[in-house]
């Protein structure tokens, strides 16, 4: 039910990779879990809305105003990054020369 191509695609989408033993195990587990989901086909869902909000009360939006946090918050957040420079988080180049 889950092909090797599916697994390859899922690894790419998930930004992970697996060792061969871990991959075989996860493939087997995913098949069992997806098999369990077949159960849902028994339920008639014609005309039923998807439940997109968990809350009874509709989600509230706040005013679209600029609020400034104290500068130390920004520096603490940047501080948590593995690589930083002059108050910025440093990231490898996304586009590379061929």
């Amino acid at each position, binding site marked *: 039910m889950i092909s090797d191509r599916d697994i390859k695609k899922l690894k790419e989408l998930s930004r992970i990779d697996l060792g061969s033993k871990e991959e075989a195990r*996860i493939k087997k587990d995913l098949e069992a879990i997806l098999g369990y989901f077949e159960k849902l086909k028994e339920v008639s869902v014609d005309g*039923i809305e998807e439940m997109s909000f968990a809350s009874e009360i509709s989600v509230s939006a706040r005013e679209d105003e600029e609020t400034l946090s104290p500068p130390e918050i920004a520096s603490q957040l940047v501080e948590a990054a593995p690589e930083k420079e002059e108050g910025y988080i440093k990231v490898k180049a996304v586009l590379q020369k061929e």
Partner: protein
Amino acid sequence: MSVINLGELSITRAGEMLHSGKVSARELVSMYLSEIEKENKGLNSYLEVFSDGAFAEAEKIDDHLKRGDQSLPLSGAFIAVKDNILIRGKTVSASSKILENYKASYDATVIKKLKEAGAVFLGRTNMDEFAMGSSTENSAYGPTKNPYDRERVPGGSSGGSAAAVASGLAVAALGSDTGGSIRQPAAFCGTVGLKPTYGAVSRSGLIAMASSLDQIGPITRTVRDAETIFNIIRGKDILDATSVEYPENKINKLSPIIGIPREYGLQEGFGMDKDVKDKFYEAVNIFKEHGYNIKDVSLRHTEYALAVYYIIMPAELSSNLARFDGVRYGLSERSATLLDTYINSRIKGFGTESKRRIMLGAHVLSAGYYDAYYARAQKVRTLIKKDFENVFREVDVLMTPTTPTPAFKLGEKTGDPLSMYLSDIFTVPANLSGVPAMSMPFGKVERDGKKLPVGIQLISPWFCEQSLFDAGKFLEKFND
């Protein structure tokens, strides 16, 4: 100072002792720390103990009390905090390698509220990685043991919190519940565990797992303590747009009608343990004998809840865990390209269960499968919620076993994720529909010569936590 049995101490009782001057907060902290020192090695319920911070907070409480200040509602709350709730300046790892050295830069809203109320934080507790699991065996830092039988699991994912309270290493604890992660370990460890109504408690500062299901709640020794903590942490918070103003006392009937949903393992299936079932009916009979009206009811779509949950939860968590990329914070495996940095950091940082669920989430959301899985699950979720709306027109509280069995053995289910998932079968419907639910201990069953606690789950309509506390306090008197 008289002898104090930490294993029997409640917030209420500790508060009374502090106010009467029988013991100081500093002395109690020192008793807790020495007990943790003695017991934690075997149990592995704490990942870190906040010795210095706890003494500093205790001294503040003692100063308040010396000045005759009675304004701290939570003096007496010596609390353990699940490792996915942020405390400013402290490490918070979600029991994952990917956050091993991450320090919180702010307090979660619940922490801020508890601090203001006079709580003392003793340490952070072990859990399944990113709250994914039902046994605490998915922690990157080793499993927690059940205090009633160390060959058994404490449940999960808030297993460290439940074990700490059960063994007297904290008077209470905070956990988080996405599909049963407060109630199932509370049941396995013989403590009280509350999953509040979705939106009742701010999730700001909780490391997100599945955002439409997550709630923070207390694990305590008494129902009254759960109520005390809940009343402090609830309420609207500007930092969590899904939190709402808590409506005051919607209903409070003197003699509520209790519904027994026949689908909760009581007729057939779900691997329902006979002894647990007997205990459950013993509890039902206590209500009956004391004049409560008991009604047989049906929640028709219960058998689909677990499948719905294991589609929606991985879908949400695969998105939430995308932020762990080796760039923003946490573990970083610097590699030749940005993509390799992402992949290598995630390979090294995530355990197998995290990888499994991230891939499952990616699968159910991917083009071609979305309608078959995710969209269908969201529709069945609507039906499950409707079941609750309908049943709460007939009854005020529902009563079910919290789990089909008592605590299982370490290693028993780690080879078969689906069988692990099935231990959440009675707890996930409350998360899917957003209603509050509480597990409380009621009696014990014997396994291999050890007495293991049984949990009874009470479920009430949205924002009617008071009904849970009222029924719970009544039943609590009969717990042996």
